[in-house]
């Protein structure tokens, strides 16, 4: 019973994934109004040559702030899980 439910739900999900892979835009011709603006105006608005770094730190700086918080929390969790207790002998 459990195996039947697992196979049924998994096959429906994979059918949806393959249908989505056929219905999406053709590979190589994406819709791009926002990125055309960013490629035109990176050099005179931010002054950086690298458009990817300008997007990460200037146009979308909030995402980098959230990601720095996640990294900090994960490191705190790992160091806390492996602390040694001092045993009284």
């Amino acid at each position, binding site marked *: 019973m459990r195996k039947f439910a*697992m196979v049924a739900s*998994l096959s429906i999900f994979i059918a949806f994934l393959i249908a989505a892979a056929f219905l999406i835009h053709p*590979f190589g*011709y*994406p819709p791009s109004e926002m990125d055309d603006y960013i490629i035109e105006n990176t050099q005179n608005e931010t002054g950086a040559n*690298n458009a990817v770094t300008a*997007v990460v730190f200037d146009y979308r700086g909030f995402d980098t702030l959230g990601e720095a918080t996640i*990294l900090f929390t994960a490191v705190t*969790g790992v160091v806390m899980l492996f602390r040694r207790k001092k045993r009284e002998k």
Partner: protein
Amino acid sequence: MTEGIPFNVPFLAVAALIGIAFYIIVSQRNMIKLVLGLSILASGVNLFLITLGYRKGGIAPIYTHAPEGIMVLPVPQALTLTSIVIAVATLALMLSMVVHIYRHTGSTDSEKSRIMKG
């Protein structure tokens, strides 16, 4: 839909990766295999993000010594950077928890480490 159904091989590869990852998560019992399944899922999503922003015959979106050509989209690459770092952080935390559960109960089977029964 007037120009026919496109046959995109990269998006089919992403569908295959995500399907394999979900099959691993649903059917395996060993905890380390579950963690590996989540890691394959993260890799599939990162591949999907990069292949969304490819322009045919494009060059990297950097102006230093750039050759002639049209530039690919920079925003999906920025989102993929963040996603890779988050995948590393969650993988480290999950593996530490698996080591702790192994030390506490002595086995890596996920059915034997249920604490709340009944």
